[in-house]
């Protein structure tokens, strides 16, 4: 009798499975047609880093202290700054990151003493050369302002 029972129970389990997929056939689709439809980015989204513009000063607040450069696990950040006044602090003139080797851990953003680093929301960087991933954030900031 077990023989017949196995066949019936087994066959019925297959029908049950087909019911699940059959129902799914008429459910709404969950995917998004990407280039035409876009999803909202998460508020914490970690793109590559960029310099924040402070409205009070109208520019970034990077003092070229080099903390981010030291804390970066992959060593992709190079900062250069000059002293604008003899007594004042330094101001960054070049802030170069090699995004191709960045692992987006966010340690630089956390460690920044002036909080002038933030994550951008860009997620579609592409380019034919690996040098396209090397970005000077100061120039980038100036471009985006103008």
């Amino acid at each position: 009798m077990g023989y017949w029972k196995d066949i019936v129970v087994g066959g019925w389990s297959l029908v049950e499975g087909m019911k699940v997929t059959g129902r799914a056939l008429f459910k709404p689709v969950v995917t998004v047609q990407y280039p035409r439809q876009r999803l909202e980015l998460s508020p914490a989204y970690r793109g590559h880093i960029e310099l924040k513009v402070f409205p009070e000063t109208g520019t970034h607040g990077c003092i070229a202290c080099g903390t981010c450069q030291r804390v970066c696990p992959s060593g992709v950040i190079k900062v250069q700054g000059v002293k604008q006044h003899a007594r004042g602090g330094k101001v960054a003139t070049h802030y170069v990151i090699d995004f191709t080797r960045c692992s987006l851990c966010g340690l630089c953003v956390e460690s920044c003493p002036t909080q002038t680093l933030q994550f951008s929301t860009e997620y579609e960087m592409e380019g034919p050369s690996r040098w396209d991933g090397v970005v000077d954030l100061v120039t980038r900031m100036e471009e985006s302002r103008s």
Partner: protein
Amino acid sequence: MMEAATNTGGDWLRLIVGLIVVLIFSQLNALFLVWLERKVAGHIQLRYGPMEVGPHGLLQTIVDGIKLVGKELITPFKADKKLFVIAPVLVFMPVLIPFLVLPFGPELIIRDMNVGLLLIFAFSTFSVLAILVGGWASNNKYALLGAMRSVAQNVAYEIPLLLSVMSVVLMVHSFKFSELVMAQHRVWFVFLQPVAAIIYFICATAETNRAPFDIPEAESELVAGFHTEYSGMRFGLFFLAEYTNMFIVSAVATSLFMGGWHGPFGWSLGIPGVIWFLAKTYFLLFVLMWFRWTFPRVRFDQLMNFSWKVLIPLSMLNLLVTALVVKFV
């Protein structure tokens, strides 16, 4: 309705026109089925499937076909070149022949032979040979494993397939498709022979190497099985042959069990027979796709066990009962 063989001129004309129509139909049909499969898979899996080329991606398979034609035909090193080249042709040629005898409608049979059913089964076995040749000639272990599995599977499933068909033939006393269909004018055989119908459908799934019986290609085990080494249009021919085979087994199931060109219980509802026939065939094809996107793959030895221990005894029993009923009732 049935063409008398006296008018030989008309007969030849009919054959030639039929062949051309069959060629075009089988190609377009296979392309359409590939699209349909992808759509069914997509929606079962809560996604769209092809959407880009043409309305709802209808032209996607044509574009894919063009891509396949443009691809390089790679012949592996140390492969048996002649057999390797000939295998895709071997697999594709016999799948066209069954179209000659399929009863699409009361007037739409190219050649209503009195051994039509036998012809189909004779030629459908042929594709196994092609798969064996292709798998063996590839000089690849995965392909060889796939080919060996394919042969064993086809041998095992041919038997219950024929036995289940025999019970229908016993009821009608004919191998002729037109007569088989005519006998279902009132009641479809799926109601009189449910066991035979189910067994036939299971075996047909196995015969066409479709999931859950797709062990000859089993991509998670054997990469791509017997067509691992095939590229370009050679692979395309295997692919088209698979879908054409699916159509044939579904069409045979329609004419044997689902009443062919008849509507249910003799109501034709004013719809032409060929529409009834195609609608039922495509429904069965849809069920085949539904199977594929629902079930896991059966293991090889379980597959054989299932055939020898369940399907064959059941179909034998069914045949015996049918024979007794036909004899004494």
